[in-house]
């Protein structure tokens, strides 16, 4: 660019030449301004355009947000001058409210033409004496200051200066500089916008990249346009860029995505996709399993839209994945344990409860669950097994029958029982199965079940391991983790305690049963021509021996004794008294005593018992067989009278009760004689029968009398059962007191 100097002033001289140069300048400016978005570069280049073509010195100032004026470009024909001015401006910022032309132009938005500046003028707007000296020394002569206007705002000012005696600026120059300034201002504006956007982007990126939560931004075609590091890790990529370069729809198939109930979810159910479909999805809880590794995570997926402000169309969705695996696992483990505990506590039949626990474990925590227990012969017994697939359950049971582990086995259930330590095997390979299998058939069966991961935990009782629980994950992507092992160990402990308690309970019950049997006659002796049946039904859980007793024994060759009685109370002491009663009566019979005296003897024996007051009610019958039936002598002590049931169903009480034995002295006993004919029945009972169903559904004496009407039509055994059933029904299955029944019937008819 040629510098036009000393060609005389005035707009007229070289007019078209000037115009052409002006146009050239603007065109070049256009090119420069379009070439870069970098503010500093651009401004420098614009300033360079004007020097020396249009000026000796060019300064571009910008107004900052806070209103201060900052110089962004200084170009001078002499580089040293430029640097000096830069330095000055840096030290003496222009006062935005001051008289300096740049400040005034920025304030007013109007250009200024200063064709000739005197020293006095220069001094008047100088920012200090140094500034004044600089301007005067450099011969500031003529200046044009044009505002940089863009979108109605003044961004700054473009100043061109001629130094020395050069041609002063005229109004054409003003126009040109204003035009240049206008274009520069647009460029600045764009550059600023761009820079702001870049800054925001960078800030955002810095935040997103470092967030712990996984975030992806996806467009409507399913392409991931942004992902942070956490998202990359979650979605199985090494870096976010890997995710962003993956084709749409290629990421999700890497995972098996299930909802809380275990139903598989497809891409369209994801909140992000649903947003694009115009829905308003809630955050979604998913169970996400990596197909390649079986690793399982629980995630909450929340998606929000980024919409175009003008069209309100959704451009992108932002997906945030919150990893709640730990929390969810803990929650599931707790609810499983609560349920398992409830099941284990619900019944004393431990094989039934273990089966229910196995059913609970499948499929919640495993595909197959088996429970082995060491029985009292030292064998490992399979108590419960359950598989998600009933066919595979059959296979499992087949293996078991043919390949029962023994306590001598080196590995597996036997080892866990011996050591008391849990074991976990994950990612089981076929050759590992082969090593474990005993033979080809065993291997075939094991492979059919398809065990991929196994956990074996001990069931610990108070003193030793009583069994083991085996959990197998098979044929599925999901493998076992440390968390599963911890849960299984807890289950093993809980189950072990429950089984042991149940066994102790069952043992106590068994002992009680044995004891009870010992206290009652094992079998009733045959009385020729007379059918005798007994029935004993214990109340409640039968952990305690009851106080009812009965007996049948020979008195002599011709006669037999039948006894039924009730000792007050339960437990060992009462059991002792029933034994005393039976044996005392038997002894008294040997002595040939009458029924009344026999009861008197028993009474004395009871009185002598320390500490005293062992009440006992007794119904004692001496039976003498006769030609057509039997003659009965009935003696009662505080006991309900027996019932005589005629062949036609008529019922009557026999005898009148005497004093209860063991406390009140003396006792008063009556004897009563009756004859029993063919087909007639005599029923002796304890008060547990008539008290059944108290208080609101009482059987009572009347109820019993009604039941007796049915006797003639039933066998003696069925008749007693009929009464027992009625009592149990009244009591809704829960008797408060024991029931003892002794029936006799004369054969014939």
């Amino acid at each position: 660019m040629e510098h036009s100097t000393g060609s005389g002033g005035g707009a007229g001289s070289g007019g078209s030449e000037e115009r052409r140069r002006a146009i050239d300048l603007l065109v070049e400016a256009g090119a420069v301004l379009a070439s870069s978005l970098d503010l500093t570069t651009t401004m420098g280049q614009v300033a360079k355009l004007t020097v020396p073509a249009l000026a000796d010195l060019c300064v571009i100032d910008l107004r900052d947000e806070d209103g201060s004026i900052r110089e962004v470009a200084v170009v001078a024909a002499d580089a040293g001058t430029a640097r000096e001015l830069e330095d000055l401006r840096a030290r003496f910022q222009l006062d935005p409210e001051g008289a300096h032309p740049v400040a005034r132009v920025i304030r007013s938005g109007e250009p200024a033409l200063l064709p000739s500046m005197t020293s006095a003028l220069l001094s008047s707007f100088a920012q200090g004496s140094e500034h004044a000296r600089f301007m005067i020394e450099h011969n500031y002569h003529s200046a044009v200051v044009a505002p940089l206007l863009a979108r109605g705002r003044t961004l700054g000012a473009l100043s061109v200066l001629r130094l020395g005696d050069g041609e002063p600026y005229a109004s054409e120059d003003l126009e040109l500089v204003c035009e240049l300034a206008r274009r520069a201002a647009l460029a600045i504006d764009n550059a600023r916008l761009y820079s702001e956007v870049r800054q925001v982007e960078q800030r955002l990126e810095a935040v997103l990249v470092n967030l712990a939560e996984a975030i992806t931004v996806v467009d409507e075609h399913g392409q991931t346009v942004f992902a942070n590091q956490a998202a990359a890790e979650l979605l199985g990529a090494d870096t976010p860029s890997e995710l962003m370069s993956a084709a749409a729809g290629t990421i999700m198939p890497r995972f098996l995505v299930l909802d809380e109930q275990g139903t598989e979810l497809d891409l369209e159910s994801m909140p992000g996709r649903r947003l694009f479909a115009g829905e308003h999805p809630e955050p979604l809880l998913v169970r996400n399993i990596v197909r390649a590794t079986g690793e399982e995570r629980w995630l909450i997926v929340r998606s929000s839209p980024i919409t175009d402000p003008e069209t309100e169309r959704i451009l992108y969705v932002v997906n945030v994945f919150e990893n709640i695996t730990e929390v969810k696992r803990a929650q599931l483990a707790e609810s499983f344990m609560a349920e398992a505990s409830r099941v284990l506590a619900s019944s004393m039949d431990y094989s039934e409860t273990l089966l229910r626990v196995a059913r609970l474990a499948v499929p919640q925590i495993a595909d197959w669950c088996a429970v082995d227990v060491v029985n009292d012969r030292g064998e490992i017994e399979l108590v419960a097994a359950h598989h998600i697939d009933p066919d595979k359950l059959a296979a499992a049971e087949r293996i078991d029958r043919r390949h029962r582990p023994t306590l001598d086995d080196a590995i597996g259930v036997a080892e866990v029982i011996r050591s008391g330590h849990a074991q976990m095997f994950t990612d089981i390979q076929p050759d590992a199965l082969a090593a474990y299998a005993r033979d080809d058939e065993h291997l075939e069966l094991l492979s059919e079940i398809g065990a991929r991961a196994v956990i074996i935990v001990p069931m610990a009782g108070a003193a030793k391991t009583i069994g083991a629980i085996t959990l197998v994950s098979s044929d599925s992507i999901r493998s076992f983790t440390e968390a599963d092992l911890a849960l299984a160990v807890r289950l093993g402990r809980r189950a072990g305690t429950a089984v042991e308690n149940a066994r102790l309970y069952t043992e106590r019950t068994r002992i009680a049963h044995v004891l009870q049997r010992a206290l009652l006659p094992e079998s009733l002796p045959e009385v020729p021509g007379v059918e005798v049946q007994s029935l004993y039904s214990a109340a409640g859980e039968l952990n305690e021996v009851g106080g009812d007793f009965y007996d049948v024994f020979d008195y002599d060759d011709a006669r037999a004794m039948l006894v039924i009685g009730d000792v007050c109370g339960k437990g060992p002491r009462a059991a002792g008294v029933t034994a005393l009663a039976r044996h005392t009566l038997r002894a008294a019979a040997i002595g040939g005593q009458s029924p009344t005296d026999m009861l008197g003897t028993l009474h004395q024996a009871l009185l002598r018992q320390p500490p005293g007051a062992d009440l006992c009610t007794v119904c004692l019958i001496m039976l003498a067989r006769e030609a057509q039936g039997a003659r009965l002598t009935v003696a009662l002590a505080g006991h309900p009278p027996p019932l005589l049931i005629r062949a036609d169903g008529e019922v009557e009480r026999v005898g009148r009760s005497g004093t209860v034995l063991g406390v009140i002295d003396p006792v008063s006993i009556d004897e009563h004689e009756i004859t029993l004919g063919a087909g007639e029945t005599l029923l002796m009972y304890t008060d547990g029968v008539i008290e059944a169903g108290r208080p609101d559904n009482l059987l009572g004496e009347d109820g019993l009398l009604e039941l007796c009407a049915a006797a003639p039509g039933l066998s003696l055994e069925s008749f007693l059962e009929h009464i027992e059933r009625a009592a149990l029904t009244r009591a809704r299955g829960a008797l408060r007191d024991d029931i003892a029944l002794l029936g006799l019937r004369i054969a014939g008819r």
Partner: protein
Amino acid sequence: MAVGSNLLIDVSREGERVVLRLDGDLDLASVPLLESEVELATLDDTASIVLDLRGLEFLDSTGLRAILLLDKRSTERGQAFALVRGSEQVQRLMSMTRVDEHLKIIATPEEILL
């Protein structure tokens, strides 16, 4: 008022007479309560003890035994002991065991003085 299992006992004292009113069931579970209440209520100068069984709905052999023991102990201490008759079941049990012939049964607590 003392409560145990299904039994409520209300104790009142009129001079030398102690009246224990029973409501509910006197059985294996509630006998200990009766025994302790009688012990607590009886002082050196107690001359008579009345068990008011009008509110007693159920009596089993353990309850019966407890009553008989109380009677025995009262006799040993020279105290009068009586029962106000109870419900039908109670009376039937007492009748069947002929305990009612042995114990003093009255219609109201005041009658013990007669």
